[in-house]
């Protein structure tokens, strides 16, 4: 039998199909082959300020649901957002999203390790159900971010309506998505998650409109530093 090193398995990014194989720079992050740079640093920096779209699908995620999920996470040192449909940052490196009341999406930012810790615990516990995740995930930043989102989402996403720790499950570009507003490096950005199989579609839509509005694709390192 052929031997495989589990750790060496390279995952395909859900968004990869829609991203340029040649003109972008690719790197493996969290075992996922990821487009990390789309243009020169100067151009990306300019885009970021006007309308930057970054693919952060490669961030590690862990999903769990069930009546005892809250307890289970607390026992494992995960900070829990206190109200349904809100989010919190756990130890600066881990985003904890509460989807409804009893489902959670944990996402390690670069350098975080909560997800692998949780994943290593394979004991099945009553009323705690692991939710495998394969999200496409994006960051949208810049002065035109709201303008872009106003075409894709019918909800009021302005600061006065979408409070700092609010999480909404809504439709973006006609498909189900989760949206929050977050401050990254002092700048307000929007984070969007959707089913990974819609990733190429969502990326194409975001980039098409971003380009029209004077922005474009930006590598995730522009937003995340490990």
């Amino acid at each position, binding site marked *: 039998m052929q031997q495989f090193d589990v750790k060496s398995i390279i995952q395909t990014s859900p968004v990869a199909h829609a991203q340029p194989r040649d003109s972008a720079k690719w790197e493996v992050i969290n075992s996922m082959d990821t487009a990390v740079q789309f243009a020169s640093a100067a151009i990306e920096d300019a885009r970021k300020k006007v309308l930057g779209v970054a693919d952060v699908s490669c961030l590690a995620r862990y999903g769990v649901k069930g009546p005892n999920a809250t307890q289970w996470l607390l026992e494992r040192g995960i900070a829990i957002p206190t109200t349904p449909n809100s989010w919190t940052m756990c130890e600066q490196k881990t985003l904890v999203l509460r989807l409804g009341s009893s489902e959670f999406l944990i996402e390690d930012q670069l350098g975080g390790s909560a997800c692998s810790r949780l994943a290593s615990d394979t004991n099945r516990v009553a009323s705690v159900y692991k939710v495998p995740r394969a999200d496409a995930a994006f960051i949208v930043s810049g002065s035109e971010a709201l303008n872009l989102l*106003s075409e894709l989402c019918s909800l009021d996403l302005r600061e006065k309506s979408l409070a700092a720790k609010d999480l909404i499950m809504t439709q973006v570009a006609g498909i189900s998505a989760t949206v929050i507003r977050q401050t990254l490096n002092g700048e307000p950005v929007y984070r969007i998650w959707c089913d990974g199989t819609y990733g190429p579609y969502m990326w194409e839509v975001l980039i098409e409109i971003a380009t029209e509005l004077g922005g474009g694709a930006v590598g995730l390192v522009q937003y995340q530093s490990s």
Partner: protein
Amino acid sequence: MIFRTPKQVGEWVNRTKKINFTFEGEEFSAFEGDTISSALWAAGQKVLGRSFKYHRARGVLSLANHDVNVLVTDGIDTNIRADVVEVKQGMVLTAVNTSGGVKKDKNSYIDSISPLLPVGFYYKAFHTPRRLFPFWESVIRKAAGLGIVNFDYPRILKRKTHSHCDVLVVGAGPTGLTAACTAAEAGLEVTIVDENRQLGGSLGYNRAGDSSVVTELDSLMSKVASLPNIKVMTGAYAAGYYPDHLIPIVSEAGINKVRAKSVIVASGAFEQPPVFRYNDLPGVMLGSAAQRLLYRYAVKPFNNGIVVTANDYGYRVALDLFQAGTKIVALVDMRPTGSTAYAAALAKRGVKVYTGHCVYEAIASSDKSGVRGAIICAYDEKQSIALTDTKFTLECDGIAMSAGWAPAGALLYQAGTGMQFDYGVEQFVPSRLPNGMFAAGKVNGIFELEQRLRDGVRAANDVIRHLGGQAPQNDVEKHVGISPSHAYPMVPHPKGKNFVDFDEDIQIKDFVNAAKEGFDNIELMKRFTTVGMGPSQGKHSNMNAIRILARIRGLPVEKIGTTTSRPFFHPTPIGHLGGRGFHSHRLTSLHDWHQANGAVFTDIGAWKRAAYYPAAGQSKEDAIQTEALAVRKTAGIIDGSSFGKIEIHGPDAALFLERFFTGVYTDQKVGSCRYVMLLDETGVVVDDGIASRLADDLFYLSIGTSNAAAVYREMQRSQQMWQLNIGLVNVTGAFGAINIAGPAAREILSTLTDLDLSYESFPMSSVRESHVAGVETRMIRVAFVADNGYELHAPMGQIPHLWNALIEAGKKHALRPFGSDTQRLLRLEMGHAMPGVDTDGLTNPFEIGADWAIKMDKPYFIGQRSLTILAKRPLRKQLVPFVLAENYKGEMPMDCNLVVDGRDILGRVTSISYSKYLDRCIGFAYVTPARKEVGSVFQIRADSGALVAATVVKSPFIKTLKGA
């Protein structure tokens, strides 16, 4: 630009920028900011269009998009509304709907035969004899229609955005501006929208010769500019009202869908024409149109004008014209008393006023291109008739008309506002406003400027209180004094051509005659005469139509009511409404691979699936047979990542499945798989799939692609009702799936996993969790496409790695990919009926011979009770496997060809295919129960009508492994 005046205060044209364009082959120049119509009018061009039905010459009527007299084309776009579309450098324009040009339209003969075309004429002729109707129809169709569509017009996708505000103010006249400022000063977030390019509404042009009112506008505008919480949208119209205060604002750039917490409608009123013979000649225009021409575009409407009026507004128009240097030949007031407010001002300027008179008829110039005079008569206001023995003629080159107003109440009506007729202003006004809707200004029956400003404040205060703030309640008194609208500004004429609806060429007598034929209800009248059904949707005609009908029936106007208002306020382009089309689709992580390997894709729900992989020059049929043969002879591999995949966790998981599906699952062994079938409560087959038991309290369900979302949704609903101790996790997108099947499948797989794949330890219908190519995989042995097949389910991101490893390992076994079309053939060979293909919306499980999958002795499952009823009824049809004759070479029947017996339809083919492996045509068909036995022969009628004999056989069609 012979009619251009010296600079007017507040004019919209930029005299420093000259623009050249052509109209009907002639060259014209204009200033930047001119509309097409204003530029042409400035140049003395008066015939700007031809009417829809009679092809009469037409010029400016409202200059406000309340009529469609002037529709032009630039050869690219059509039905351009010249009155309001800015002229651009280099435009090459012609009028639409003419034959041989607007000046010498050959179709203008229709005007002279109009007596042959009474109202509703097309109902009355052309249908006998029947055989000639197609001829007449083509004549009529060609005559109808306005512009010619340009089939090369580019597809333009406009942006559609959403926005939100506390209050949306519709209309930026003095009322709307005041309301917006008041609301904004109270801290509300305000959006104000106006279809004009500039703010101000009538405040910009209704000056009565005194341009000092412009300073009032200036101060309002600077106040608006100083308030950051007012968002101003000009050149944009509120296209309609939709529930919960959703209002699409349409502009050149696209559509902004505003969701407002409240709405103030301050949309003003449309000026309505008085109705007299030849009131449609070029040069006869509404008073407000004359004012717009003058103050917006600095164009003098005419040199020697008559003003005909039935209210005080006409006097204001006369003063404006006078100021511009037009000689006012006369002011003709249909009211016996005239205006007390303005009579002196006109007298001072030496304008002759005829009170109690009307224009009986406008006189066309010799070439009918304009007006050269008017016949004036005394007017009997009580009887609404001209006293023709008093008639005299005045010469003029233009007539301005003012008789009254109709509220621009479309949004109010659409929101469900109750309207009542207010005789103080002779118009409909809101009487019962829906929650969050407010009206102010002319649309609310308030006309005096000072009063309108207060009404704007009042409406804003109402909004502030509505939204929970504090504000005074300051009612504005109703209009007092002379009505701004005349009750019946009509002048009958025995020869007609006194137009009510300019879009549709409808005259007074058309209403009279329609009523005579019984169409004396406003809606029936609209439908029979087509009044208000043209592109301007009755803006200048509905009110007069109601008045005329009321008079005909001897009823007060409010008893007539109005026709229903429907979106859109202005006709709205398809490209705007459609916008950027979002066509969402789902791709598996292998999509790149499929593309690189030449797959042809097919859409299944939102998914794009590889259907087959043709080699260069290979036909679809060949590709499918080649792929299928590989599965039978060596091995094939298919991307099944789009299958629905659902985990059911928890102690009640088996119980849940037993209620949801037809089978039994409580005694299912861990590591084994069972068939599931879902019915609806009427007993109809919805879907099927496989449930694999991974643990006592965990099932893994895989179902077909197209129904997956709906099945999961129904599972969630059932769980809401049943409240069992389970958790549902939809992993459709998180997990991918690969099916590797065929004689070599096991051997290929064995090189990538250390799991014992022997039939004894991994038999048919069982599931194992193991590593394959290093990937944690759920392996399911199912016999859907071949009995030596393995479904490998793994995280979507690792599927390409797994796939590539299998492809690599399969190279020496001639492993080849196959697509979803090939899968259809393979499952047919295996004898599997597919819900949705071999069933339809009424098929019950007995009809497809699925009795074995139904466990009736359970306490409950969805559809069970209906099955007990169906079981007592005779079967109506039965799905049977069949083959065609060996070496059949005739016409190949297709799916859905019928099974017939003479005149009787016995059923239909649901699936049929040639199987190269079997060298036989095989399929499924519905037949009557009498024919269901193995060996019975039935006839399929192929497309051409040929009858093809088929024989019922046993399925599966191919030999399968026993005991594996």
